[in-house]
């Protein structure tokens, strides 16, 4: 999240000692419900996930230590993890630039319209739609003999069965996820554009800057904090993709649309190997941490905080 979002804590050194002590006691009371839940349902499970990944841990039955075997097994021949990892990385690498360019473009376009609010809500609707439903909708559109087939034939193209084809299935799923999620970033950017200071835009106008140069040299740099936020969130979500490929292709054909999360799900809840499933979960976690950290460190090179 952007640094500017974290407001600095209120109050300087605590002078009034008895008051401070009583506030500390109250704080404990106010904090207990949430801290208990957070410990039980987030912190403890995270630690347990690390432990689980080093054991042979069937859903029912004997648990035994496995060392690093769960990790090394992932790269044995026949394991679906490498394909899932490559798909997830390819998917993320395609989604992020596509999503950002399209949603930025849409946000700037919407900003010029008199019906800004209407378009924001319209583009946001797919975001709040259950992804199982949107997956079904797009499966219908992709179906041979369906709407997209017809549109392609109108311009003289013969459309292959995109979801059933090794080389196009991942792309077809990516399109659906882009369509599904675009409105979220469009809304974030649209709001950031609204908050651009008038003085700066007026100054650009007085200096004779045209539409495009104002857009690229003035507006875009000013909303980089929003771009930073959106990139981080989009990336984390892209690494976790599951619902759409699960419903549309079940990871197929072959492993063409298998993702890391689907691999975790299969290993844990189809084959009942919780230890073997925890290893890819930890790798995914590490990947997300590293990428977020790199992204965070890169801020100072491209994000403008006034």
């Amino acid at each position, binding site marked *: 999240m952007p640094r500017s979002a974290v407001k600095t804590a209120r109050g300087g050194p605590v002078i009034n000692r008895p008051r401070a002590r009583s506030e500390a006691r109250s704080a404990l009371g106010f904090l207990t419900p949430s801290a208990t839940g957070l410990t039980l349902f987030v912190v*403890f499970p995270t630690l347990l996930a690390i432990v689980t990944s080093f054991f042979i841990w069937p859903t029912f039955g004997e648990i035994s230590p496995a060392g690093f075997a769960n990790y090394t097994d992932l790269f044995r021949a026949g394991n679906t993890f490498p394909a899932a990892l490559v798909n997830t990385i390819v998917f993320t690498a395609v989604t992020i630039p596509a999503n950002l360019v399209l949603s930025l473009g849409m946000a700037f376009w919407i900003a010029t319209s008199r019906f800004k609010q209407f378009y924001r809500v319209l583009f946001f609707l797919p975001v709040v739609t259950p992804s*199982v439903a949107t997956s079904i909708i797009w499966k219908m559109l992709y179906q041979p003999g369906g709407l997209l087939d017809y549109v392609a034939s109108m311009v003289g193209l013969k459309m292959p069965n995109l979801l059933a084809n090794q080389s196009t299935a991942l792309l077809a799923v990516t399109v659906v996820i882009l369509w599904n999620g675009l409105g979220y970033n469009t809304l974030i950017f649209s709001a950031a554009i609204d908050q651009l200071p008038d003085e700066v835009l007026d100054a650009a106008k007085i200096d004779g800057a045209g539409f495009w140069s104002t857009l690229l040299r003035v507006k875009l740099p000013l909303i980089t904090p929003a771009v930073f936020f959106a990139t981080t969130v989009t990336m984390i979500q892209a690494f976790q993709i599951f619902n759409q490929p699960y419903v549309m292709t079940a990871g197929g054909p072959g492993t063409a649309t298998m993702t890391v999360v689907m691999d975790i799900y299969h290993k844990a809840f189809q084959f009942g190997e919780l230890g073997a499933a925890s290893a890819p979960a930890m790798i995914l976690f590490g990947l997300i941490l590293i990428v977020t950290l790199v992204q965070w460190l890169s801020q100072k090179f491209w994000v403008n905080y006034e």
Partner: protein
Amino acid sequence: MLAVGVRESLLLVVAVLYIAPIAYTVTSSLKPNGEIFTQPPSLVGSEVRWANYADVFAYAPFLRYILNGFLISLGATIVVLATSALAAYAFGILRWRGRDATLLGYLATMMIPQEVLVIPMFLLLQRFGWINTWQALILPWAFGAFGTFLLRQFFMSLPYQLVEASRRDGCSNWGTFTRVILPLARPSLAVLGVWTFITHWNSFLWPLIAVNDIEGLGNVSLGLQTFFGEHGAAWNLVLAASVISIAPTMLIVILLQRHLVKGIATVGLAGR
């Protein structure tokens, strides 16, 4: 003038195309079964078959799925609002040693993705004997630090004199919290509440894992998925069921658009 007109019309065309998949689904959900994949495709079928919707409710307990999803989302929303508001008061209003370090710890937990937690969560609930229970669907994801952080940011934007005045009037912290802070925080509580409700309503991966008895505890996503699998061929019914599952959240967003758009714009909601 013409340029503006052209720009607006083009934008309208793009918007119509963007929303076309949903619109086409709605009209197709009213077609007779044989007409979903006709060439050339038609927007409206030979008859408007409202009976598709009655058939959906006859084939699968969609009312039950809706009720289940509603109760689960409502339960989770109450837990999130209550615990987050309390914690936000401790972080945003009260002064105590170690506060900022504790907050940082809270924020760090936001980095942990749900996928890392599903397996240990499953083990935990298996141990509690909670698999296939309401609490398994309501509690596990109701303790993210996100809500606390969002409300804390809002509480900090309130003038601190309010708190001081309330104390001078003899209010305890509990009194200040319930009578001064919470009433003022209503808009941000609404945003957090609606967003929590929607994410739980749409949840899929966790119900898929934690629910065996789909009719008793399944939400619309889960119901839709089984419906799609079992009745695979009856596309018109599947589409009608999809429309049924889409309608509630869309309605919420359209009705509450102003609050929601403003809230998401100010914080950017990283929901689960």
